[in-house]
């Protein structure tokens, strides 16, 4: 189904699935949806996460230590879809686990598991022909990353093949916290708007209500990843869902009071 953001900015929450275990990921996901997350990115742990900072690297290692697989991520999506029919569910992965699972098989399985969209961190538009064919065939939304370093030609390509939303990387670098939202972010979103009507989500380094409020001025959604994963890492056993719910309630102070669209 389509991904729509009702609030401004919508909140997109990234979770590394299986960190620290599958049951916790499920409970945190449900708590996040109930606390106002409109889209969940379900992160598939990978042994070599080149685009991620130390926090998400550690989460991947924890998830892999007890053998979390793409199968588990799809099963979790199905469970979440049954329990929370309206949440947007996006699989977020490096390419190799999907390739190994079988691209066709994955694209066939994902919709029946309630998945709406897929974002592959290390798959650029140039390499995505076969992937896009499978995505379209199975009515999955392909979501691509746009970076501050992307040329206008690239932004146009990215905008033309993305569906659901476009993920704008707020700054040059890997995932992780930052103090101020780089001015890169607003510029990138403004450049992207020339090529697309799709909602634009801004991610990388968003961790405070102030960041969320800043994003609301120029983008449609804010992606919260490292800040969430870091809280899960530090949470006492059993407390992660409550910790994340209360963190999201804080972030929502940065949302505008009137509906977005």
């Amino acid at each position, binding site marked *: 189904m389509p991904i729509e953001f009702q609030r401004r900015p919508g909140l997109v929450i990234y979770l590394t699935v299986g960190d620290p275990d599958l049951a916790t990921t499920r409970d945190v996901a449900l708590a996040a949806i109930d606390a106002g997350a409109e889209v969940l990115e379900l992160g598939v742990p990978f042994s*070599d996460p080149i685009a991620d*900072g130390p926090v998400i690297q550690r989460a991947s290692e924890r998830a892999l230590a007890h053998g979390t*697989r*793409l199968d588990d991520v799809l099963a979790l999506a199905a469970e979440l879809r049954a329990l929370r029919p309206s949440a947007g569910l996006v699989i977020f992965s490096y*390419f190799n686990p999907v390739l190994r699972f079988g691209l066709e098989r994955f694209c066939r399985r994902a919709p029946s598991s309630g998945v709406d969209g897929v974002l592959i961190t290390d798959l650029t538009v*140039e390499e995505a*022909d076969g992937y896009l064919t499978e995505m379209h065939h199975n009515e999955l939304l392909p979501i691509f990353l746009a*970076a501050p*370093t992307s040329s206008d030609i690239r932004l146009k390509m990215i905008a033309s093949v993305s569906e659901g939303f476009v993920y704008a990387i707020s700054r*040059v670098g890997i995932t992780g916290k930052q103090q101020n939202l780089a001015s890169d972010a607003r510029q990138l979103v403004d450049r992207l708007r020339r090529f697309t009507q799709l909602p634009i989500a801004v991610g990388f380094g968003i961790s405070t209500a102030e960041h969320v409020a800043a994003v609301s001025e120029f983008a449609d959604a804010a992606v919260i990843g490292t800040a969430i994963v870091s809280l899960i890492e530090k949470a006492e056993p059993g407390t992660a869902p409550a910790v994340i719910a209360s963190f999201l309630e804080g972030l929502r102070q940065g949302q505008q009071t009137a509906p977005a669209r």
Partner: protein
Amino acid sequence: MRQIVSTATNTVPGRFGAYGGRYVPETLMAALEELEHAYAEAQADPVFHAELDLLLGDYAGRPTPLYLAERLTRQLGGASIYLKREDLLHTGAHKINNCLGQGLLARRMGKHRVIAETGAGQHGVATATVCALFGMECVVYMGEDDMRRQELNVYRMRLLGAEVRGVSSGSRTLKDAINEAMRDWVTNVRTTHYLLGSVLGAHPYPTMVRDFHRVIGQEIKQQILEKESRLPTAVLACVGGGSNAIGAFYDFIDEPSVRLIGVEAGGRGPALGSHAARFHGGSPGVLQGTYSYLLQDDAGQVSLTHSVSAGLDYASVGPEHAALHDSGRAEYVSASDEEAMEAAVRLARTEGIVPALESAHAVAECIRLAPKLAPDDILVVNLSGRGDKDMGIMARELHLAGAANAD
């Protein structure tokens, strides 16, 4: 697995059959495009070639000799064995060929900061050397396990003014060093050139690095024709990422009479995690920007690897080798830790040449193969590096320490 490659992507430069490509975070695409463009410009510029040739000659010491190893030939009682002496190059390995080329490119692109990964440390030393020569800032990422086993090269890099950053994630070897270098590059992409040290990674690296090492095969061809008036029976080279091998092979690919034999690290044995023989236990997959053979588990997680030689201890292999493997144009065999160590000792005591443990894998295959061939056969072994850096490992494995000669 091949379904990922549509006919459209096959036409993209940087593909080798089904393999290669450009699988990176979007942030790096601009830098890869810039590099591809700068490299194409440099390739077409006689000034660039003149600068590079001068440095390869006067600074690095090219051409390297093609040496007839007569005692080893006699001992093995088969084919004549020639050694391509890349070990005699400045900094002690073939790696300098590529570092001079990319160093010049970085200068042309106006990038003053250079980063690199290193396994055995030979690429790190060559990068640190070129950065010193060109006055550039240099950061080298190296797995902590590799820092320990190639300690001398860590000191050399620091002496040359480079900062060596230890990497403690994963297996603490080459793969993890590349991960960290890529993270650095994603973060500092606007000011930094990533001087990748093998025919790995996203396009244009596999093509560009191969081009910078092509000189090895060009020289071999010319030298063997001068000495023997005919082409060799086979060219042998060790294959980690595969840069010395592709450099040695490339000008023979269209000479079907010449066998091309790559030697991977057989490590301690065939169990996953005990070796780095990608063509004997690996399957196609994407790692660090390229689609090639990969040691991985059934969930697509990259396996740990093992080799006594840090430079071969890597889970994937250059995509051009994957294509040469599938087409059958090149053969890929493996040599174990033990065979490599024995080969190193044998070459040292027969010819007075101590090879790097990486190169010793190629020597090991030569020792197996030569007796099966006729005296008019010719084997050329690319001796890609010298063994000084491996003295610590060799001293331990061969019990060279202490007052008495333990042998």
